[in-house]
């Protein structure tokens, strides 16, 4: 039995401890905001927070998360209104949108550790997240915007 705290809710799942967290979230718990893109930690579509770190759930066995805190895109921000989500809407970042939950989850760790990131910091943090539509410029812009929202406390 694996115990997971996902988005501040506790779950007990009777599951193969080797199953990647991605598939536990999607197929077992039913949280599908976390996406499957490559299965080999290359694209970042599956990024969730495990104890605050932006792990790639496609290669993270669920046993690593046993008894730990997991946050998915559905739980980003207290009311799912994280400044990044607001900024993403304001900058109208998404095209197809498939990679964006992973992008947001990666960006959230960046902002937590560096509330005033430069373009270089953003590239350093976000180069693990592929956007096949090429929305990278707007991702940079939205992260700057979210940083500004955080700084001004609005």
């Amino acid at each position: 039995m694996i115990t997971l705290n996902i988005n501040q809710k506790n779950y007990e799942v009777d599951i193969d401890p080797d199953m990647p967290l991605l598939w536990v979230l999607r197929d077992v718990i039913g949280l599908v905001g976390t996406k499957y893109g490559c299965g080999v930690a290359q694209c970042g579509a599956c990024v969730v927070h495990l104890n605050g770190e932006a792990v790639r759930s496609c290669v993270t066995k669920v046993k690593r998360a046993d008894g730990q805190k997991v946050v998915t895109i559905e739980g980003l921000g207290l009311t799912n209104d994280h400044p990044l989500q607001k900024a993403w809407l304001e900058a109208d970042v998404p095209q197809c949108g498939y990679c964006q939950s992973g992008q947001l989850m990666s960006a959230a760790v960046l902002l937590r550790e560096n509330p005033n990131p430069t373009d270089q910091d953003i590239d350093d943090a976000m180069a693990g997240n592929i956007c096949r539509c090429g929305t990278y410029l707007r991702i940079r812009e939205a992260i700057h915007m979210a940083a500004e929202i955080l700084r001004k406390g609005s």
Partner: protein
Amino acid sequence: MKRQSENKTFHLQRLKTIGLLVIICSAIGIFSSAFENKMDFTGIKNTGTINKDSIESVQAFMQVYKVLMSPRCMNCHPAGDVPLQGDDSHIHSMLPKRGKDGRGVYALKCANCHQPENLPGLHKPPGNPNWHLPPADMKMVFQGKSPAQLAKQIIDPAQNGNKSKAKLLEHAYDALVLAGWNMGQGRTAPPMSHEEFVKVWTTWIKKGAYAPK
């Protein structure tokens, strides 16, 4: 100063070892030779004369060098602040930065992808619970180093993470070093077995840790 504190620790260790040796008696040659070797921690000898040990030591290091410069070792001892990847030692695809502690930055920390263990299948990140690069203040660069440069660097506590020869000998069994021989599917192993590596590594150090010219 660092060396002095190393001295102190070493002396404590030595005293313990002496005690142990007294108890189990000094008949075990291997221990005594290790003991002798631990006495010599001062780095590269510069005697100006060529002796037999130096030739053996250098020969051993040339074998060591092959391993250290193999992708399995060098990829995490890059010249820049981004690790290398693959058998061709290309720059790691998503440019994860070393960070202060060698464990990556922001959303690209090593452990975000590299799990405590290897995963089955091709293209999966190799795993280790302690996966990291050398830290920013002790980069221990292998990439681009000549055998002479690398040997001198490895034996220099100021550049090797403050390791004495004894620590260096132990380092051959470090979990991350061992991981080089267990990197998951699709990655070529270093050019000799770990056992062989330990042999040449030990020979190199015990024979005086000479650096090739």
